């Protein structure tokens, strides 16, 4: 859901009283035409508020919490669960960590590599899977009115609108900012995740848990890759005959 232009102007007044729209755009790196268009339509995007907050050294989560649709973000940040944290580690990082474990004979002398930043290629899907008790998707579509197939389509594309990300977190009973991290709108620090929390969660997995998890991820990745290869082969065949 977008934010109302009126509320946005009021917020902008409060953080940068003397700045013109042009100044704000220059500092935050937003295109002037983009912002002008959003203001004319009366719908300001979440990423606009996040960019401006960062430019003025304000925590974007706190800034978003000031807007009515995102008021659930206010108050002390709930810490992320372990499965949420692990879901935000890329498959490649999981594999590297696994190879550095004693369970792998190659591990001798290998040091655990540092984790890549959030989000990763399947972070949204992995996050929802990590917090899903089996009914979350139904509850989200019931509260937001978004059709389940549209919701699934967004997950498959590793996308989720900020509104749906927050609604999903609420429906699953986890910290409301987690989805914004998974979708890459805010960083883990901005969401109040403790430094090194993902690494700690990863380290707390036993060799068995980590191996099983990496296996699941690989299986899903394998399916996706195979489907892409099939689509590609089908397209090649069409072009071979009709191109």
């Amino acid at each position, binding site marked *: 859901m977008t934010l109302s232009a009126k509320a946005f102007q009021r917020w902008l007044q409060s953080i940068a009283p003397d700045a013109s729209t042009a100044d704000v755009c220059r500092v935050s790196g937003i295109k002037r035409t983009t912002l002008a268009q959003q203001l004319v339509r009366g719908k300001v995007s979440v990423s606009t508020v996040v960019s401006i907050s960062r430019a003025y050294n304000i925590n974007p989560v706190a800034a978003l919490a000031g807007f009515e649709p995102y008021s659930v973000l206010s108050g002390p940040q709930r810490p992320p669960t372990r499965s949420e944290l692990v879901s935000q580690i890329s498959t490649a990082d999981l594999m590297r960590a696994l190879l550095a474990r004693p369970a792998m004979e190659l591990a001798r002398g290998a040091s655990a590599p540092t984790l890549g930043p959030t989000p990763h290629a399947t972070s949204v899907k992995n996050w929802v899977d990590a917090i899903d008790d089996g009914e979350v998707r139904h509850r989200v579509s019931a509260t937001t009115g978004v059709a389940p197939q549209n919701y699934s389509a967004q997950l498959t594309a590793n996308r989720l609108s900020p509104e749906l990300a927050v609604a999903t977190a609420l429906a699953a009973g986890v910290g409301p900012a987690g989805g914004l991290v998974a979708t890459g709108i805010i960083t883990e620090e901005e969401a109040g995740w403790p430094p090194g929390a993902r690494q700690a969660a990863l380290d707390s997995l036993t060799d068995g848990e980590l191996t099983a998890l990496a296996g699941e991820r690989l299986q899903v990745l394998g399916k996706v890759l195979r489907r892409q290869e099939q*689509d590609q082969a089908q397209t090649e065949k069409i072009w071979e005959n009709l191109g």
Partner: protein
Amino acid sequence: MIETLQWTTLAVCALVSVARIPSTLRGENRSLFGIFASMTLAILLSIKGPYLVIDQALGGINLANLLLRFVIFGVIFFMGIRISRGFSADSAHRHITGRTGMLVLLVVSVVMVALFFSMDTAGSSAGLQAISAKDARHFALVEYYGAAGRAYPAYVALALVPALVRAAQDRLPVLVRIGAALLALGGVAVALTLLFPVIPPELGQIEFIINYTAILCFVIGLALIWAARVVNGRGAARQKTSTET
């Protein structure tokens, strides 16, 4: 209106044929050039002016009309093979090239030729309108002759439509999907020509519109699939150079 549609279709088809010459010379899918060129010939034969000129050269007994029918059969047969192979429509491929398909083609052809020669076809006339007007017997014969000419294309089109509709909904490049959708629309239009006998004469224009819509859909659909390949090839080439530097 009809004239504009006819000449536009001819221009589009001729343009695509010419555009295919370079890739044909490179040896890529030569039969597609044949399909486009034959389609251009078919459209030329279906327009009054060129028809009269060509038919006069062939002796003025409307052999050009018979030629037109067989050019259309050839186009639809080879297009059917290409499309069913490309879209992995095995059952459609069997229906076209298998025993049933060959039997349908043979029967329709024999009936059509027999009907043609049982008429007194002297006097060039586009669409055999003058022949049909001769008497009640000729009117009926021209109707049957026309129906036979529409039957085979409709048979092939109906065989192809399901696979094309599926392809249009598949996870394929968007240009390929639009191309498949247009081919499907063309197939439906060709199948609709079976209903021509029940269209009242006052609405005769509809027949022209359906015919030329079908051809335009086929030509543009095939051209889009080809364009998708060209676009894809360029994208891949650009990616390669950017990773090399």
